[in-house]
C-alpha cells in the first residue's frame, strides 16, 4: 500500500515536470512576444530589450525552465541580478518559495495570485459538488424507482434540457430573474468565511454554485438512474429479495451500494477539475476565482501566470486521481492496490 502510494506520487511528479515543459514550449512557439505586453504600447526598442532581459526572456528556453523549476523550491528574484540587488534593491521583486513565477502585467507573484483566487474556486467547487451529488443521486434514484412513469420521464427530460443548455445561458438567466428581477437571492459576491461567516459566504455563493451544479447534476441524474437500474437486474438483488429482506433494505443496502460505487470515480475527478476553476460560471458571475484568473492571464499573454495555473490544476487532478483510486480500494473489496 505505502509502496503503491510512493510509486504513484513519483509518477505524478514526473507528470508535473513534463506538463511544465510542455507549457513552456507551447508558449515559446507562439508568435507573440510577451515583453511587448509587459512594456506597454509606447515602448522604444531599447526599453523593450531591457524589459526582455529583466523578465528573463532573453535566455534560452531550457535555462528559463531550469530557473523556474529551481524557483519552485528555493524561490527567486526578478530580475535575477545580484549587482542590481546591491545598487537598487527597490527594483527587485522577491518571489519566495514556492515561486511559480512573477507576473509583470499585474506586478505580483503568481503564487500570490493563485493563493488569492484558490479559496474562491474551492468554495464554489465544493458547494456545487454537494448540490449536484445530492440532487443527482436523489433524482436519479427516484427516476430509477419510477422507471417508465411520468416522473421518470420528467426527470430524465429536464436533465437533458439542463445538460444541453450552455452554462452562460442558465447562469445569466438565473442571475437576471432570481437575483435582479425577483430578488429571491442575493447578488452573487464572494465573501470569505473569515469576514462574513458561513451564512454570508453561502448566500453569495448560492447562485453561481447552483448554476454550476445544474449542468453536472444533469449528468449525475442520468448516471445514477442507469447504475441503479443495472444493479436491480443483478442476480444478487434477486438473492436479497428471496432472503425475505424488506424492499427498503434491498434498495438501500444492496442496490444503492452497488450503484453508487462507480460514481465515486467520476465525482472525484469532476470535483478535482472544478477546483481549477469554473471558467464560464466565474466569468458570468464575475467571480474572481482561478477560472477567471486563467482567462485573464491567457488574454494578456501572461506566461508565468498561465504556467502556474496549469501546474496547480494538473497537481490537483493528479492528487485527486490517487485519492479516488485509494478510495476505490476501500469501498470495493475486490480491488487491491499495489
Amino acid at each position, binding site marked *: 500500500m505505502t509502496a503503491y502510494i510512493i510509486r504513484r506520487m513519483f509518477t505524478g511528479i514526473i507528470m508535473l515536470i513534463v506538463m511544465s515543459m510542455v507549457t513552456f514550449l507551447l508558449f515559446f512557439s507562439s508568435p507573440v512576444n510577451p515583453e511587448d505586453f509587459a512594456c506597454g504600447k509606447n515602448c522604444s526598442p531599447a526599453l523593450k530589450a531591457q524589459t526582455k532581459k529583466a523578465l528573463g526572456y532573453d535566455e534560452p528556453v531550457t535555462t528559463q525552465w531550469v530557473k523556474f523549476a529551481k524557483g519552485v523550491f528555493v524561490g527567486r528574484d526578478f530580475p535575477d541580478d545580484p549587482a542590481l540587488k546591491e545598487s537598487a534593491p527597490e527594483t527587485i521583486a522577491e518571489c519566495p518559495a514556492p515561486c511559480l513565477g512573477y507576473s509583470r502585467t499585474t506586478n505580483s507573484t503568481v503564487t500570490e495570485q493563485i493563493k488569492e483566487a484558490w479559496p474562491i474556486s474551492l468554495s464554489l467547487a465544493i458547494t456545487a459538488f454537494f448540490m449536484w451529488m445530492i440532487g443527482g443521486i436523489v433524482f436519479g434514484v427516484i427516476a430509477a424507482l419510477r422507471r417508465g412513469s411520468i416522473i421518470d420521464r420528467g426527470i430524465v427530460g429536464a436533465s437533458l434540457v439542463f445538460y444541453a443548455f450552455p452554462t452562460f445561458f442558465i447562469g445569466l438567466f438565473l442571475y437576471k430573474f432570481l437575483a435582479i428581477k425577483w430578488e429571491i437571492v442575493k447578488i452573487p459576491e464572494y465573501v470569505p468565511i473569515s469576514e462574513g461567516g458561513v451564512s454570508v459566504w453561502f448566500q453569495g455563493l448560492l447562485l453561481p454554485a447552483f448554476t454550476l451544479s445544474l449542468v453536472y447534476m444533469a449528468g449525475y441524474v442520468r448516471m445514477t438512474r442507469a447504475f441503479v437500474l443495472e444493479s436491480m437486474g443483478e442476480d444478487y438483488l*434477486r438473492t436479497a*429479495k*428471496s432472503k425475505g*429482506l424488506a*424492499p427498503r433494505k434491498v434498495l438501500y443496502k444492496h442496490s444503492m451500494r*452497488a450503484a453508487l460505487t462507480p460514481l465515486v470515480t467520476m465525482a472525484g475527478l469532476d470535483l478535482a477539475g472544478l477546483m481549477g476553476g469554473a471558467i464560464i460560471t466565474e466569468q458570468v458571475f464575475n467571480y474572481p476565482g482561478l477560472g477567471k484568473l486563467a482567462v485573464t492571464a491567457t488574454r494578456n499573454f501572461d506566461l508565468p501566470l498561465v504556467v502556474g495555473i496549469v501546474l496547480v490544476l494538473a497537481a490537483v487532478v493528479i492528487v485527486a486521481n490517487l485519492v479516488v483510486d485509494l478510495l476505490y480500494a476501500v469501498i470495493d473489496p475486490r480491488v487491491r492496490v499495489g
Partner: protein
Amino acid sequence: MTSQAPLLSVKDLKVHFPTQDGIVKATDGLSFDLESGKTLGIVGESGSGKSVSSSAILGLHRGTSAKVSGEIVLNDTDLLTISDEQMRRRRGKNVAMIFQDPLSAMHPYYTVGNQIMEAYLVHNKVSKREAKTRAIEMLDRVGIPQPDRRVNDYPHQFSGGMRQRAMIAMGLINNPGLLIADEPTTALDVTVQAQILDLLQDLQREFNAAIIIITHDLGVIAEMADDVLVMYAGRAVEYGPCKEILTHPEMPYTWGLLSSVPDVTGDTDARLIPIPGLPPSLLNPPSGCAFHPRCTHKDKVKGNLCKTEMPELLPGNRGPEHTKRCHLADPEQIYFTEILPEIAPDLVEEFAEVNPDGSVGDAEPVRSSDAAAEAEEKKI
C-alpha cells in the same frame, strides 16, 4: 396441517408476461405436489419455463408486469392470495432458493458472513453476535473449512464450490420446509457438482426439507429426484416417479433429452442424438402439441392430430402415477425398438431379460451420474 396434505401443492400455475407484441406464456398451467423430505426434479431446455415457475413460488414476480394465476399452496396457505408483506415473511423462512451462478448471486461488496447473517436476522429477533455464531455454524455444516475465519471473507475470495456451499448455508439457515435449487451445479465443475449434490441430500435428510431441483442435466435428476417433471414450452409434458420416467419414458421430448446425454463409461461409438430445432417462441407457441414441429414421431399418429389438438396430461399404460402429454398410442414399443437401441444398446437386452412382461426394470439408462458417483467416492 393434516399428515395427508402435501407440503407444496401447485395447481394450474400460469405466469404470463404481457409485452408489446403479445402475451408471453412462460408457464401455462403447471400442476404438481411435493411432500416433505421429497425431491422433485424439473427438467427442460432453456426457456421452457422452469425458473419462471419456481420464481413464482417465491413470489419474485410481484411488483413486475407478470400475471400469475392458479394456486400455490404451501403449508395450507395459498401464496398467490397473501399480501406482499406476508409473502416477504415467508421468503427465506418457509421457502428458500439457491441459484445457478453463486458468484453473481452474492453481493460483491459484503462479506459472505454478512450476507448469511442477514438472512437469519430478517426472520429472527437475535443479536448480530448470535446471528454470526449461527452463520459460522451453518458454514461449518456445509463443509467450509475454518468457518470462523472464512465468515469474514468476501465472495470473490471463495472458490466456486465454496460459494455454492455458502449459498446453501444461506438458504437453509432458517430451516425452510422447501428449498428450490435452480440449476445449483450448472456453473460448477463436475467433481464439485457431485459434492454439492451429496451435500444437498445430506442436508435434506437432516432438515427433512422438500427440494425442487431445476436442471437440464438428467444425471442430476437420476441422482437426486424422487419425482420428475419434464417441462416444454411452459407446460408439463411428462410427470411421474423418477425411476419410472427414466426407464420407461413415453413422451418423444423426454426421449430427446435422454438421447442427448453423453455416456462417459459406455461405448464411445454410441451416438449422441440432439433434438432437432429450437425451443418454440412462447409468444406464438405452435398449434396443437407444442413439441410437434420438432417431433420425429408425429407421423405415427393418425391424421393431423399433433398439429391440431393439444394432448392432455394423462396417464398412459403404466399406471396413474405416470402422466404424459402425447398422442402416441404405444410409446413404449417405439422407445424400446427405436430409441433405446440407438442410445444404449447394452440396456435393451437387460430390459428384455428383466421385463418380459413390461414391468419396471432396475436398469438405469442415464450414465453421467456414474461419473458423479465416482467423484463422490474420491471426495475428501
